[in-house]
């Protein structure tokens, strides 16, 4: 999966109308809340069969941190 595809998956998971970019602060994203974090756990589980903890997601500050979680699984 490419980085752009992952960003699109995250955008859809958040049910967001506008695109998201890697340099965006999570706090600045209106839809980012605890439900969004849960949704992301579920999404990563489905896409990559990796289960992160809420603490790991909670440490992320920017969209790029969310992408970095899955490391070399995105290109």
């Amino acid at each position, binding site marked *: 999966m490419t980085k752009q595809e992952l960003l699109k998956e995250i955008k859809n998971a958040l049910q967001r109308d506008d695109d998201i970019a890697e340099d965006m602060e999570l706090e600045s994203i209106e839809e980012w809340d*605890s439900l969004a974090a849960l*949704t992301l756990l579920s999404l990563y*589980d489905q896409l990559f069969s990796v289960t992160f903890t809420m603490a790991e997601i909670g440490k992320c500050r920017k969209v790029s941190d969310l992408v970095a979680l899955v490391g070399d699984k995105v290109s």
Partner: protein
Amino acid sequence: MVKIKYNGAKIAGIVTVVPEHKRRIDDEVHLYGNDPKQIARIKNVIGLNERYVSDVDTTTADLCQEAAIILLKGLNVNIQDIDGMILVTQTPDYYSQPFTAACLHAKLGLSKDCLAYDVNLGCSGFVYGQWLAHMMVSSGTCKNVLLLVGDTTSKICHPRDRAVAPLFGDAGTATLIQRSQQENPTFFTLHTDGTGFHNIIVPAGGCRMPRSSETSIEVEYDDGNVRTKEHLYMNGGEVFNFTMRELPPAMKEIFEFSGKTIEQIDYVVFHQANKYIITNIARRLNLPMDKAPAETTGRYGNLSSASIPATICDVLSNEVSSSSKELVLAGFGVGFSWATCAVKLDSIFCPEVQLYKGNDK
């Protein structure tokens, strides 16, 4: 690993009763921060829509009582022939004494030759209850065990805690487990991980933290949710992680132990925690979604211990009433506790979910 097979016991019928007040999440947007977009996400991701909640005067025991009366009447079983009753609930009539099964024993008019006790378990409780009932029948202790399983979790949720309030619905169920002339093997596996006990908890009200003026103070947390120490708290992320860590291996375990393949099983009925947990587990197991009902949460909410029997009544009523179906049941949640069961339901008494009437109270 705790795994066991019991012979000579069968499920004769299952009845589910929900209370009369229907709530729609769309009518409650004001409770959850007036954010319609967030409500839309809750509906879509968690699969929530409608649920039924009981009024102040109706308890879990009342719902289970009505379910039991419908069940025994439907099966034409004499109340005097019941020689065992188990009540599985986390919302009893009394928190310490007496045990609620005693109250139900009196209200149902059960015989003095009927044993009765409570079990405090939540989302794994229906499968644990089946294990107890099958053990009691298979060992020869009892001939007819009435298993009552239910919760009125809405009573312990703070209305402004959107992590729990829109999620939990109320229901009471009754199942009859009887001696079977056939071998009819039923398989169980049971687990506990008590290190997760603090992730689903009502902190105050027991002997560890008695109720006081302090425990009833409302606190608004960083996430905008409001509750007191006397309300249910749930850490959704930790519960999700627990489920994804433990459920897939537990499912493999029950398939191996029972010697059944996914092809031989008609349905896997998971505890209906929410839609996305079931979807994720099914995907992990390569289980087709038409074998894993996941829509009951949308119609009734998360019914805690009652969700597996409610799903059987909600989705499989016709099929298990008129034919023989091989099921795997999987309950998981508070404790943490999880259990699975491979069981056959052969032309049982199983009406669709019933609305509470309260005529017998």
